[in-house]
């Protein structure tokens, strides 16, 4: 077994077991490694021995580990805690996505690989009262909670939290430019699940389905 194989396998296992996400932007070498069926199977087998398995997002932009079964009350408690954490942070994350879209005048959500510049956002938010209010609302509690009152500080705080939670990685050559990671793809899958199972699309989805049927 070569050193490079050993190193990359160790990196991947450590990252996955620590609850991390592997994508092109968090660890390119590991991501490329997992794209190969044989290597992916190897990692999956290692995880299986620890009652875990490898998952990837539908767009294949990110890999993460999940439990392969809920075999004990302790494990169910762990899963419950993770679910609560995800659901509680859903609203602030979506508000942030909406804020970025409005500020940059885009009609698409944040996508893995997208470069977000803090300065660009700051310039847009500082001159628009409604956007300032939205940012204040996002940072008033929950995952982005901060006591800062200046737009710049609030924005920095949100960016720091997003980096901490692996949603963004700082670009090495620039102080305030960040790249969105594959974790956004995971978030949108959670969103789609909730959207579908809670029937939040209502009439629109019904019409869409009828159109498809025709």
């Amino acid at each position, binding site marked *: 077994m070569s050193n490079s194989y050993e190193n990359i396998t160790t990196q991947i296992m450590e990252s996955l077991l*620590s609850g991390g996400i592997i994508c092109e932007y968090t660890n390119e070498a590991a991501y490329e490694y997992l794209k190969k069926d044989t290597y992916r199977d190897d990692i999956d087998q290692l995880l299986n*021995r620890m009652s875990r398995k490898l998952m990837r997002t539908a767009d294949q932009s990110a890999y993460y580990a999940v439990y392969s079964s809920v075999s004990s009350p302790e494990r169910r408690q762990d899963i419950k805690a*993770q*679910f609560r954490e995800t659901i509680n942070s859903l609203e602030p994350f979506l*508000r942030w996505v909406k804020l970025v879209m409005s500020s940059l005048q885009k009609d*698409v959500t944040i996508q893995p690989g997208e470069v977000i510049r803090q300065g660009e956002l700051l310039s847009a938010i500082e001159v628009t009262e409604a956007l300032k209010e939205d940012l204040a609302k996002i940072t008033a509690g929950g995952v982005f909670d901060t006591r800062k009152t200046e737009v710049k500080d609030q924005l920095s705080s949100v960016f720091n939290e997003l980096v901490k939670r692996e949603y963004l990685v700082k670009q090495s050559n620039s102080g305030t430019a960040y790249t969105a990671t594959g974790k956004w793809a995971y978030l949108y899958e959670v*969103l789609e699940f909730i959207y579908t199972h809670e029937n939040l699309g209502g009439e629109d989805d019904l019409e869409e389905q009828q159109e498809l049927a025709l």
Partner: protein
Amino acid sequence: MSTRDAGVKALKILGRHAEIIMDAYERRGGVLDDSPENTNKIDDLVKYRFATFDDESGGSPRLDSQVKSLLDQAVKSTKLRMSDVNIGEAMNDIVLYVREYKRAKSEDRAADCNSRLADVEENVLKLCDNLTRESENIWRQIDSDFGTSTILRTKMELNRNAMGKITRILEALDLIDIDQLYNFGHTDTHLRRLLSVRLPRVINTCRTELSDAIHRLNKMMFQLNKLAKHANMVNSVLNQYEVNPGFKPEDYTDRTEVPALFMCVKPIGKQVGKQVVLTGLVDVDSSTLEPVFSELIEGLRKELPPNEKQLAQPVPVAEGEQTLQVLEQGPFKRAIRDMFYECLSEGKEISVIDGFKRAPEGSDLHLWAYALLAEFNSMRDEERELFSLKYEGKPHEVFTGNFIAKDVVLCPS
């Protein structure tokens, strides 16, 4: 003036007024700057039909669409242009000229024959160029992700438009009777070159490229639909939070079959600063590990008992008179035992490293430590009760069952 002279003059006019033309093409949406200093230039361009006065643009002169097409082609523009390729009409013209050419040839009208062959060639080359340009144009739009448009809906419309255009071209190409073209070229070398080789080759290339383009456009459309769906979901779910503050979805982890999406692992290990340090804990509740554990336990009992049967013949030993010999302790063992005496008599703790100064010169520290442990372990129970050992060190960061001792301290009980 001959056609050649007129053509050269026209091209010179274009060259002379290149600045104003490019200004109109690049920055003014095709409308020429009609300020007084440009009056003569505009007159020249209008005279040669490179520009025309347009009522729609408030009477301002604008570049002719042919000039814009020429520039699009030259600068490989990604701007969207209406397709001017009409395959059906072009093929009708080609067939007409071929028939006229064959008739003139059969009637030995050489001048007509040459003239009609030139018509066939021009029309074939024009159709080939149009098909190639159309395919290139569509691919340029695809490669540039439909130019500068940042609006999702516009991109989707442009995608549908390109898809429709490709479908129409492919349908028209399907209607071309290739067998008829081969038949035309069957008996004539000139026609064979044009109709049996060149045109079918271009048609085939165009068909392949456009089929690839459809595949790519479909993929792009799938991606665009996904992006639109994401934006729609974000809006809908946020709307739900607005309308219904405190909205909480069902706890899907209560279900018997928990969706894999919500079974993300809890980080293994302990938090050290900002990092999670992994530990080598095994999941003892895991039923999948049962065979591994069983194998380990079996392995512990696997060592076979020693074979009691001695194959070697016993050696006869003469029982002579035996004298009791007292083994004298060496300086190393004495030094070890001195440590125990000192610990007991002075009632103080002595570490192996500190006590190493008692060891005879040239002793090894590790050996010294192991000798102390061996002395402790080989004592009778009543003697050992007088002492205890303390290990100074820390657990292994990964394999938590292991303890890395840096020193051993001998303590009085």
